[in-house]
């Protein structure tokens, strides 16, 4: 029996020394991502391409958590959402009013702004790393199973890391919008057009997921995948956007919509 045919190797240029500095790459990914990813493709692997963006993501994320949970309006909204969730349980007959009062007291004591800042900050650190690693894995899988191209995981990691810069910018804009508008879940998305944005409503979550920076990040990721796999941009974008749509829908419909924002 003949051995199975080998997967075609992507045509790669011989490795050469990087011409852009790390800082330049991090900034140029906004304006000329194609150029950045072309260099990433041919240059030796560099951990800085993903570690630095992740660290920036963590710094911005922690800052966002600290600032947002210091806003009286935001804290008030959180309280109202907690009360609403508890009141729903009472009305559904799952708990008594006395138990609801106890739950409210416990939440006030253990889930106040200070606790939220602590847990939020810790969560940001975890999410920062998990997010990049996840996208790198997804891109690697797309290359192998969809595009039939063997990709180096380190390269997909660099692509995922560099596109995180757009997520960082989106987080800064979201922080400023949240502070300005005094509402949770704000970002450069259709959520701005929703009155009384409620993170417990699926329709509102879909509006929140339609974020300019998310689309931007997906487009840049598509460019990165296209460059690494030597495929047309349209084909790579089709794969990436389809995956994103499925992911967001699954998160929102399964009740984990907050992760979709």
């Amino acid at each position: 029996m003949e051995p199975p045919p080998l997967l075609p190797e992507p045509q790669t240029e011989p490795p050469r020394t990087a011409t852009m500095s790390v800082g330049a790459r991090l900034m140029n990914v906004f304006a000329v991502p194609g150029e950045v990813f072309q260099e990433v493709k041919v240059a030796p692997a560099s951990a800085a391409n993903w570690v630095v963006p992740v660290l920036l993501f963590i710094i911005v994320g922690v800052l966002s958590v600290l600032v947002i949970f210091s806003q009286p309006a935001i804290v008030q909204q959180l309280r109202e959402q907690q009360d609403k969730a508890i009141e729903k349980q009472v009305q559904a007959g799952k708990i008594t009013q006395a138990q609801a009062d106890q739950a409210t007291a416990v939440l006030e004591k253990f889930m106040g702004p200070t606790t939220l800042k602590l847990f939020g900050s810790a969560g940001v650190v975890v999410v920062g790393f998990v997010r990049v690693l996840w996208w790198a894995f997804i891109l690697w899988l797309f290359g192998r199973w969809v595009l039939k191209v063997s990709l180096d995981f380190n390269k997909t990691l660099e692509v995922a890391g560099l596109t995180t810069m757009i997520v960082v910018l989106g987080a800064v804009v979201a922080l400023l919008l949240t502070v300005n508008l005094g509402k949770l879940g704000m970002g450069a998305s259709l959520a701005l057009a929703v009155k009384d944005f409620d993170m417990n409503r699926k329709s509102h979550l879909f509006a929140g997921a339609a974020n300019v920076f998310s689309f931007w990040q997906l487009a840049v990721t598509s460019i990165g995948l296209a460059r690494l796999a030597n495929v047309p941009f349209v084909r790579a974008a089709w794969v990436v956007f389809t995956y994103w749509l499925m992911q967001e829908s699954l998160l929102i419909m399964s009740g984990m919509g907050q992760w979709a924002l």
Partner: protein
Amino acid sequence: MAKSKKRRKILVFSVIGVVLAALTVAAIFRKREAVITIQTEKVIRTNITEIVTANGKIQPVVQVKISPEVSGEIIALPVKEGQCVQKGQLILKIKPDFYLAARSQAEAGYKSSLAAKSTAEANLRKAQADFKRSQDLSRHKLVSDSDFDSAQAAFDVAEAQLSSAEHQVEMARASLDSADDALAKTTIVSPLSGTVSKLDSEVGERVVGTATMAGTEVMTVADLNEMEARVDIGEMDVILIQPGQNVRLEVDAFKDRKFNGTVTEIADSAKNNNPALGISTSGNQEATKFEVKIRVKEKEAFRPGMSVTAEIETRSHSNVLAVPFASVTVRAPKAKDKKADSKLAAANPPSTNSVSAKANNSAAKTNVLVASTNAPAAEGTNIASADKKSKDAIKTIEVVFVVEGERVKMVPIKKGIYDDTHWEITEGLQEGQEIVSGGYRAIARDLEDGKKIRKGPALADKDKEEAKGG
């Protein structure tokens, strides 16, 4: 090519920079404050009838517990539980043998005493005759002094014996009457026309009876045509109850009907108290209750012991200003206002009505925040616990939040009476003012004078909206 890339970079970074700068400037100069979601209602004029609700039992107005005055074995019990009896009808018979024998003995004693009296009379006549004869002989010096004295003494003795015999006859007569009475008491007739509501004994049982205290309770006869509800009212509410007040009654056995009644009697002492000792005989944990009797106007097949809930209309005010229960809460007055408000607080202490069914607990009706160290109070002072009543009266005042545009104003108020849903407001508000009526937490804790608010739907309405919009 390189130029266009450079131009593109400049454009992208410029746009990003401008957007970030604009948002940052806006965030720095924007005033940040919490906006509290509330619901509102208007101050209205309405009639308010204050109701005190209490639970109790239906009992007959007249009810007699039948217990014998003599002891013995029951030989006849010609009635059954639930049977109607007439006044004077035989209801119980005790074995009379012992009492018959006692009567016979007493009769014999009486007759014996009569015979003794006759003997004493005869002796007296003889002694009298001997003394008279001796007197005559003594005048003529025909009998010695000693014989005369003996005759006189014998006469005196005979007189005394007759007197004693007469008293013995009286004693024997009384004994006979007592024996007759005890014999009569072996037959018991009904003291009133009514129904045997309870029958505790059977034929053949031995019962104990005494004349000085209640013996074995054999049965209870009650007039079921006149029934009353006996309810327990807490000490805080009993002062509102007066004889003649109208009452709506709901008997558990007749759920689909409401009955009317009138207060007839109010206990002067609490149920748990022993007036003789001047102390409560129960533990300190029990609430102090006073029994109130309510005559039921309608006739129905009530049975003694049926459960009843009474709603007593204590006071009624017409066309008064009223606000929903949830609107009224307490807050600590601000430092500069404490002097002025302490008078208001002393005159209008938080209501501490007793707990009972439906609408009797004013602590449940007003949004009172108890013993919370996180309660936002003016200038950081905490609200005192409701357990310290006297301190509460000084430290907190009752307020309502009036909506003024995008903010609320905390207005001290004076309350009057209340019904199921509304408080009467006697001071502080005007008709038509928009006041905060929900949510609970906003009123009880979050709202303060001048806070920014926004009107939102009530929680139930919000859930309906969500169900429509998903």
